[in-house]
């Protein structure tokens, strides 16, 4: 593990480090590690990575119905006629759609907010795809809105805000159950999780 001149990296390397450093959650140390990882990749793989980045920027768009990222508009989920158009599940991020799809237990549609209300981070309701949700719900056949934001302070506040916004519409608004993780241990669960799990208990 020798030979990488970290303090005075070549300008091209320094530039890569600088760009990686701009990504969320990547500090300068991680940026350096990633940069040197990329340098060590076989040329083909490095070019695939570069190409994937530029293609995604050219091709990906927001689905005009659900706001999910897609190569087509509407996206494959919105155009799938086997799906139940009376249910819409609201999630924070596109990755959440993938996670829910993997469960194979939901056959309705989605709406992706692309974030949560987080004043401290400068994100207000107007920065989310909320207007699009309200427009979409107005006068459609949607009967149930399932709010699946994360059980964090900001996710919960966003859920409560949406509930208030759609209050006038003839809709059933539900929320994913919150409780103990599968494989979790009661002993290590925090008080908030435990009390929510208790409140959400079901008859066996």
């Amino acid at each position, binding site marked *: 593990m020798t030979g990488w001149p970290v303090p005075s990296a070549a300008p091209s390397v320094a530039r890569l480090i600088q760009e990686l450093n701009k990504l969320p*959650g990547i500090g300068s140390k991680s940026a350096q590690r990633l940069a040197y990882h990329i340098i060590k990749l076989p040329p083909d793989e490095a070019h695939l990575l570069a190409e994937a980045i530029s293609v995604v920027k050219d091709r990906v768009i927001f689905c005009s119905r659900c706001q999910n990222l897609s190569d087509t508009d509407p996206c494959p989920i919105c155009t799938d006629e086997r799906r139940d158009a009376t249910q819409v599940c609201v999630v924070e991020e596109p990755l959440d759609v993938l996670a829910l799809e993997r469960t194979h237990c939901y056959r309705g549609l989605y709406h992706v907010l692309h974030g949560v209300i987080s*004043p401290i981070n400068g994100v207000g309701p107007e920065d989310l795809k909320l207007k699009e949700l309200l427009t979409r719900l107005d006068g459609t056949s949607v009967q149930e809105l399932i709010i699946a934001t994360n059980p964090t*302070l900001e996710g919960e506040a966003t859920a409560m805000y949406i509930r208030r916004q759609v209050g006038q519409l003839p809709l059933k608004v539900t929320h994913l159950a919150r409780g103990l993780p599968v494989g*979790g241990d009661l002993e*290590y669960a925090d008080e908030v999780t435990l009390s929510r799990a208790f409140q959400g208990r079901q008859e066996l």
Partner: protein
Amino acid sequence: MGQPRSFRTEGVVIRSIPMMEAGLMVTLFTREWGKLRAVVHGARKPSSKLVGHLEVLNCVDLTLHRGRPGNLDIVSQAQIVEAFPALRMRLEGATGGMYMTEVVDGFGAEGSPNQEIYQLLVQCLRALHGGAPREHVLRYFEMQVLDHSGFMPELHLCVDCREAVQPGQHLYSPEAGGTLCPSCGIKGQQVYHMSVNALKTLRYFRRSSLEEACSLRLEPQLSRELTNLLSGTLKFWLDREIRSKSFLERLA
């Protein structure tokens, strides 16, 4: 050098940002160290035993490992001391809590403890959780944060000519540092007209307990005036708007 590798403290989680590989970066306002940023490895994995404890607004007992120089400290253990569930289950409570964490984030400094503000934050979160009137709690909180940060505005004398301000004859300027008499006020740039009731209420919030402050009657007009005066003052000292404020206003 002689510092122990790990240390223990109590703090309120004021901010939390996802990091690579299911990690989390949390900002805490701690009793012993002031504002402190730390990394929680693997926090967002469902198997994590830490994440529920480290939710924003929780007051937690923490054990941290000192990071290497230039790196953040690492949370190794966390246990809730006090959670405020009733606060986060109501939109008004949650936004009130968000607002206070943003103020503390703005006024707090890393490595600079302020036990008074720490106690105040916990006390005000507890009050909101217990259903205390939000506007009272927030105005009291702002006033006390200013006081404990050394930015308490003058509320008795004209900050310019040092004469005692006469009832009903006072202006207010965050820039100038407090009340002004009408003749000195003309020179100032940004000056607020201040009612007698607003002046009396601010004086009272400075010396009263939170319980006493909450039992005061605040007419909507007075409440709005206090909100403007205090947010103008916070904005002046922080050199920016508290972003949660516009969200609070939208819900009002």
